[in-house]
């Protein structure tokens, strides 16, 4: 099973603006399937988006939901992953000001996942599904997906570190 997948992603700015939302200068927490969203009444966050908010808040990582003044519903599935994580978007401008923010975010999530999986052994490690959207150049987005056991989540952190390193080498 391939744990990490990367692919191009549609211009999320255009989609957000079409729906009446502006792109924030912070970690942008979006509901999964945002790219297919037809109207705002269908917005439904993943079950653990509130946990992600708490973790980012306690680590002083700035974040925004689609709209600060709206309270959103969430989809509670009593199964599947250990944590049902939302889509995390990192825009170019925000990354320019905070070059370490993706790694910092993945680190705090890895720590949370480790704590939540304490009763599991490596053999029955629960599943984790995390999607990160990175604006690599203005209006050019790329999707990074980790889908696999919690016990291997560190590989995603290492992978994203290498993505960062390669990006820095290219820029210099």
């Amino acid at each position, binding site marked *: 099973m391939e744990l990490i997948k990367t692919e191009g992603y549609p211009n999320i700015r255009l989609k957000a603006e079409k729906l009446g939302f502006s792109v924030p200068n912070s970690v942008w927490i979006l509901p999964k399937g945002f790219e297919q969203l037809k109207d705002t009444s269908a917005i*439904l966050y993943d*079950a*653990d988006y*509130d*946990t992600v*908010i*708490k*973790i980012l*808040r*306690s680590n002083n990582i700035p974040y925004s939901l689609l709209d600060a003044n709206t*309270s959103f*519903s*969430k*989809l*509670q*599935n*009593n*199964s*599947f992953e250990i944590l049902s994580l939302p889509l995390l978007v990192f825009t170019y401008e925000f990354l320019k000001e905070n070059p370490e923010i993706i790694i910092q975010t993945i680190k705090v999530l890895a720590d*949370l996942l480790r*704590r*939540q999986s*304490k*009763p599991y*052994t490596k053999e029955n490690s*629960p*599943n984790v599904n995390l999607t990160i959207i990175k604006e690599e150049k203005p209006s050019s987005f790329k999707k990074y997906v980790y889908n696999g056991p919690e016990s291997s989540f560190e590989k995603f952190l290492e992978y994203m570190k290498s993505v960062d390193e390669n990006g820095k080498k290219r820029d210099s």
Partner: protein
Amino acid sequence: MERKEIVNLIKEKSRYLYITRDQVILEEQISLLKETEKDIIEMKEKYISERNEEQANLWLSLECMVKVLINGLMMFVLLKKGDPDNAWNSLIDAQNNAHWSIIACEFDREFQQAYLNHFDQLEKWLFPPQTFVSPSMRVELSECSVCKKNMLDCDHIRGQCYMGQICTEVVTKIKQFNHLAMVSNPADKKCRNTHVGNTNPPKQNLMTLKNEE
């Protein structure tokens, strides 16, 4: 009452966790363990009142371990009484308590993990494979079990332990029921298909395969 004393007691009582044990003896052990549980809860509450989180969590962990035993013994009693559906519920309560014991405090990881593994094995050997179900719903409001605030407004993390209690999310407003899915890894193993068919002809109990009116 000391932690070591409780751990030794739990170790000693594990010899009753076999289906060959006499039902009356199992029931006596359950009564004795319920008395121990009361003493443990008293200790935990003492530490909570002293705002000693480390000790409060340790005693919650010990309480969970005693509940593992109580539910494990109860599972055998119910099997002997010919009630496998409720025996299943006791098994799941034993598994959940073993899980929460580790979350609350890893006072002896190997020992705690052994109980979790033991009940996972019993699930495989004593019960037929189950078809689990998982409800999916659109939740509009929920509150934290620790501080009772809106789940978004506090800093407690669902599934973590705070001052002798595990934080859970209490859903207070469901906007819409979405679907019911059949799943292999449910959050709650008590959510399962119990019967097949309807009342005419009689439905079949999937544990016993007996037709029930």
